């Protein structure tokens, strides 16, 4: 038996990798089922983009954006959400852990709660959204009429990383919200999947108030809209100064900071369902 004194708290990253790796291995045991689920998932996400293609069979441009330009937005938003969903998506399931009391098991382990909850039931099959959106993004980048410079090329990975971080912030706020509003968990779908849906389309399509909300309240505009304004050289629908197009890293950092505080407050206030 191991000496109890030898047990040190795992650092969050190795804890995350340990839990996620375990779930990934268990999914790969049923290899055929895994392949099927990924393929079906690719189809589900693919169908969504077909809807956009059908729209463009009726019009040459939507809100002044061509099909490849919308593909760039769709691909960037989907890739960011896909990465976030793959890495941290399980955090949205925390409501059921709170309800049935199994969250207590997490709390007694010598590991921080967040990496455990984020890696809980880590689903490698969520790769499908990433693959599909990544494919559409590549199509958009190749086909859109972009005047490429070093700055614009560099903006693409920055946009994807910041987009992932902003979605992680939204997911984390949603998870914190579930600590006190357990049954109302579906509200967060309006901001995660709704946010993804919103940022697939050009900002010029929406009412100014909605765009303002996405800039100043829940910073979904910085997932892809504002960086893409710079990449595509499009006019800013709100007429904000051009330097705001580079703000994604700052906004993502600040927003994740706020989400972390909300998470901490929620966990501090947690009372077990008891037994």
């Amino acid at each position: 038996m191991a000496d109890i004194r030898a047990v040190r708290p795992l650092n969050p990253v190795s804890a995350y990798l340990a839990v996620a790796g375990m779930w990934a291995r268990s999914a790969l045991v049923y290899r055929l089922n895994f392949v099927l689920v990924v393929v079906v998932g690719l189809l589900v996400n693919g169908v969504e983009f077909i809807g956009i293609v059908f729209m463009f069979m009726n019009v040459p441009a939507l809100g002044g954006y061509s099909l490849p330009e919308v593909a760039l937005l769709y691909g960037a938003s989907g890739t960011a959400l896909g990465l976030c969903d793959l890495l941290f998506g399980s955090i949205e399931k925390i409501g059921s852990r709170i309800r049935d009391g199994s969250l207590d098991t997490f709390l007694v382990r010598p590991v921080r709660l967040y990496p455990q909850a984020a890696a809980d039931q880590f689903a490698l099959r969520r790769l499908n959204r990433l693959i599909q959106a990544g494919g559409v993004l590549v199509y958009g980048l190749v086909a859109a009429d972009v005047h490429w410079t070093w700055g614009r090329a560099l903006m693409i990975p920055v946009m994807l990383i910041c987009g992932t971080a902003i979605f992680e912030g939204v997911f984390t706020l949603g998870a914190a919200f579930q600590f006190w509003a357990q049954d109302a968990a579906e509200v967060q779908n309006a901001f995660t999947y709704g946010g993804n849906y919103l940022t697939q389309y050009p900002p010029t399509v929406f009412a100014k108030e909605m765009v303002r909300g996405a800039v100043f309240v829940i910073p979904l505009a910085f997932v892809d809209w504002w960086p893409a304004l710079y990449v595509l050289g499009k006019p800013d629908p709100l007429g904000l100064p051009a330097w705001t197009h580079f703000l994604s890293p700052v906004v993502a950092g600040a927003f994740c900071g706020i989400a972390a505080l909300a998470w901490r407050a929620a966990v501090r206030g947690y009372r077990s369902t008891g037994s």
Partner: protein
Amino acid sequence: MRLHAARLYRTVAAGTFRRYSTYRAATIAGVFTNTVFGFIMAYTYLALWNVRPHLGGYTASDALTYVFIGQSLFAVVAVFGGGATDDMIGRIRSGDISVDLYRPVDLQTWWLATDLGRAAFQFLARGIPPTVVGALAFHLSLPSDPLVWLAFLLSAFLGLLVSFSVRYLVALSGFWLIDTSGTQAAAGILGMFFSGQLLPLNIFPGALKQIAMLLPWAGMQQLPIDVLLRTTASLGGLGGVLALQVTWAAVLLALGRLVTATAVRKVVFQGG
């Protein structure tokens, strides 16, 4: 004491209605989410109809009506799956379905009654609010003739029957597959694409539109909304739409009975 069959199923439906009415926070959350999606979709459709004012035979305000009625029908008709048939899937996986089969009632009618109870509650609680909010924010083409509303409700009810019979078949696949996540996902894509949830079927390209309009899924969203907007001329009018829906409901419910009989005879249930 033996309950009269019709009264029994009414009691079952009323019980589900009450059960769903206790999930208050979840209901409000669902209304909120459907309404937010409605707003986002509304603007994307407006962008389309601004360029093509009579696309698919709809005016811009017809298209907006399509969006909000679609969001209202979303939970009621359960195009993506869900509803009472999800409970049935759980019972097949756990083997509890054998208890249901002991009961001196018809399995399909029992679950239909359960699903109708759910849909009745969700019609009142989740169906009405998104359209009301949509009508406050936008100009919708809602008819003033109560008979049109009545025809719409009838068409939506037939859509619910078709949706139930599809979901029931998906649940029955669990007798053979145990894990129905594959069939559920496949049924979900077909539903999203062919019901008109993704995009109104009347703006689908050429032949695909003609085919999609005749498939069972069209009855879950596209056809009821066309009845409400009175844009059924190309579909053989109101009579043609209702006849198509009744036919699909009858065919799929009959298929469900056939598969139930096979499953009960041939399959070994979970849990022995």
